[in-house]
């Protein structure tokens, strides 16, 4: 393992910000830590970088404990949330900074700066001042600066957080391509699940300083570990259910569940695609409360009588008008029984 974190705990005043976190990152892997603000994900990065001492637990690189290694000797790269470019240096000076600190000869520095600026799509920008850069350009310079000394592990703190949506979507694809090409090992943190799923080989969901789930983007998306993860991923159709055999009793009535589902009381998720709108009189009776156009589909808010609201995804031409009475049936392939009922 390139990076191993074992039982990492950090406490300020009050409950721990990092609570016995275990995490391994293999050479060449891209791991994305996903969590709401305050979940401890930035503290995790700072602890790995050596900027935040651990109260207990350990961080090892290639099996060597890093406790006594100060930040500037760990050989890691960290890209800060708001870039933190050095304002008094130009673009080239920023990118060359790490190379100078590591004592690279001048000629090699210049060559590497040129190479990196080309890599991030800013060829010839070395003499520009950082104040004249747009947000996206700053982000690219920060990336070039972090990559320049060839860090063993590159860490990204909300790498695309401050950029607008379209730029973010384009950059995340570029980043993944770039890291794949360079074979860079990456540990990134973000609160945006779209970013995490697009970037990562493996997604780690954090909550209150603990790891709530770890898996490939597909695994996490298909089988959220618990109601918290499901809601954090944007799923709102989560209720407490009692599962017996291939059916579950829920406030929405009796729903079919997949055959391998855990039995007993559990949280149950219905993905919006699995909420099918049919003619009134069939299935669960609902009133259409609102509908939101989402580009590829329409999200329809449904109000069943005496039960939590439901969100359905349907094609634009099938979408009912607000106020209409409709029926709802559930598709078993989009019903997931989650492990933990407590927060449903």
């Amino acid at each position, binding site marked *: 393992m390139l990076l191993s974190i074992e039982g990492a705990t950090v406490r300020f005043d009050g409950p721990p910000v990092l609570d016995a976190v275990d995490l391994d990152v293999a050479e060449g892997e891209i791991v994305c830590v996903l969590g709401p603000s305050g979940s401890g994900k930035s503290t995790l990065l700072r602890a790995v970088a050596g900027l935040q001492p651990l109260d207990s637990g350990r961080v090892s690189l290639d099996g060597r404990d890093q406790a006594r290694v100060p930040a*500037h000797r760990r050989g*890691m790269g*960290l890209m800060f949330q708001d870039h933190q470019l050095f*304002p008094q240096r130009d673009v080239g000076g920023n990118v060359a900074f*790490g190379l100078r*600190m590591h004592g690279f000869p001048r000629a090699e520095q210049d060559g590497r700066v040129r190479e990196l600026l080309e890599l991030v799509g800013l060829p010839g920008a070395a003499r520009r001042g950082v104040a004249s850069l747009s947000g996206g350009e700053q982000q690219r310079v920060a990336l070039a600066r972090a990559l320049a000394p060839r860090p063993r592990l590159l860490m990204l703190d909300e790498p695309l957080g401050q950029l607008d949506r379209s730029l973010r979507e384009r950059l995340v694809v570029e980043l993944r391509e770039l890291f794949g090409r360079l074979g860079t090992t990456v540990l990134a943190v973000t609160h945006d699940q779209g970013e995490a799923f697009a970037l990562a080989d493996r997604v780690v969901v954090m909550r209150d300083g603990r790891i709530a789930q770890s898996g490939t983007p597909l695994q996490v998306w298909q089988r959220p570990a618990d109601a918290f993860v499901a809601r954090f991923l944007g799923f709102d159709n989560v209720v407490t259910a009692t599962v017996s055999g291939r059916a579950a009793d829920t406030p929405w009535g009796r729903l079919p569940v997949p055959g391998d589902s855990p039995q007993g009381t559990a949280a149950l998720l219905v993905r919006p695609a699995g909420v099918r709108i049919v003619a009134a009189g069939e299935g669960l009776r609902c009133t259409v409360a609102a509908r939101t156009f989402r580009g590829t589909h329409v999200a329809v808010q449904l109000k069943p009588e005496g039960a939590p609201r439901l969100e359905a995804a349907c094609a634009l031409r099938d979408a009912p008008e607000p106020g209409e009475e409709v029926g709802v049936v559930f598709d078993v392939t989009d019903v997931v029984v989650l492990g933990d009922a407590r927060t449903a």
Partner: protein
Amino acid sequence: MRPRTAGGLSRANAVRLGLMALPVAFFALFFAYPVAAIVARGLEADGDWQLGRIGEVLADSGVRHVLWFTTWQALASTALTLLIALPGAYVFARFEFRGKQVLRAVVTVPFVLPTVVVGSAFLALLGRGGLLDELWGVRLDTTVWAILLAHVFFNYAVVVRTVGGLWSQLDPRQEEAARMLGASRLAAWRKVTLPALAPAVAAAALMVFLFTFTSFGVVQILGGPAFATLEVEIYRQTSEIFDLATAAVLTLVQFAAVGAILAVHAVTVRRRETALRLVDPSVTARRPRGAGQWALLGGVLLTVVLLLVLPLAVLVQRSLDAPGFAYYKALTSEDGGIFLVAPIAAVVNSLQYALAATVIAVLIGALAAAALARRDAGRFVRGFDALLMLPLGVSAVTVGFGFLIALDEPPLDLRSSWILVPLAQALVGVPFVVRTMLPVLRAVDTRLREAAAVLGASPWRVWREVDLPLVRRALLVAAGFAFAVSLGEFGATVFIARPDNPTLPVAVARLLGRPGDLNYGQAMALSTILMVVCAVALLVLERLRVPSRTGTAGEF
């Protein structure tokens, strides 16, 4: 984010202690020790502490009179300064007009002028044979008004820069938001702007009170026999009456008063640092609109001309009063009989001393500021922040005399060394260096340092590569302030400057103390030279002034 582990804490502690060691040693040796020595000399006899003397001295009606005068003139000076300078603060904060930069510099010049120069200038304006005397037969030098006006002259910039600096960065949209919620123009100002400004006004008022409470040079020259502040009385008791016991008690009284003022100041400063939404000053200022605003601007300009420019102009005019620059020429001749050298030699002496003092002050002050600026600075270190301000208020006379008494025997026999004068002057310069550097150092984003560390920079290189380039200009500004303050230092220097090596302020005071037109004219000429040197130093600084994001630059 305070590191909690033992390793992190002890390393941070070690760095902090390393930074603090030199400043602490400096203040212990050259401030605490001499002051303590003087107090001990006054209150200790045959190994016993004569604490009863404190009561006796305080019961003396003459001393009570001095205390009363010191307090009320400081209160009156502070009130008068606020009254005259607050409109100025508003004009500088909110109006954009041609020549504003120049005017800002002009307003600041008096603050760095030596007290002796200010005294001479007001003497030339209000004194016997002064401008007002010639024109209308009015003399104010025997009244308290001369002292009050001179104090306003001095401290105008303190209020304009401290209050105006913050005012110019308050977001006007806050007031607009209040008005959209139904507040009248006045109510919006009262409920939104005033509370935001109040801590800055309080801090400025306290600084003015501190400066005027401990006023020495001005009162010494303008006060005559009728008016004496504590500081003047301490000087009289030590150098004329040789009553060290009384002087020691008065020093302790002043020490207690200054300590109290600084404690209140520290609290208001901390409150001022509470989050205010600050914006770039350039977006809040606009051209005056309407007769009322133009009248306000005109009034402020008139005040500046009458109160700040006129005294200095009269000073220059008086120095040129004799045909053919006679007063200036007289400065170069040795037959004055007052000094062992020609008065002009004082210029060279002063510059050399001030340069040495600046080097010391910048070194000590920068180390202290670096220690204070650290995020993990604990309560102990922050307490040192307030202690660093003490030399501004503690009797300079006591410090000077303490130097003579305490530093004249081995292992520290500096009495005959030239370094004595720069050391005393540096003591006054350090608070200015700390005040200038601290906001800039605190404004450096910690994560910028972390970014450098992660890229492989050791702590020392982080300082060199990240902090130093950002604070270089602040460092120069601090050096300039220290230089100007050292150049004008009078209270301590008057004791320790040797007769054959006088500084400019000491030479001016000696010349003023002697009768005759020639001596008076030479005093005016020397004061003019001193003023020009200080003004040039300041104008260079104005060009360097750092655009600060914190809104705390240039205030005391």
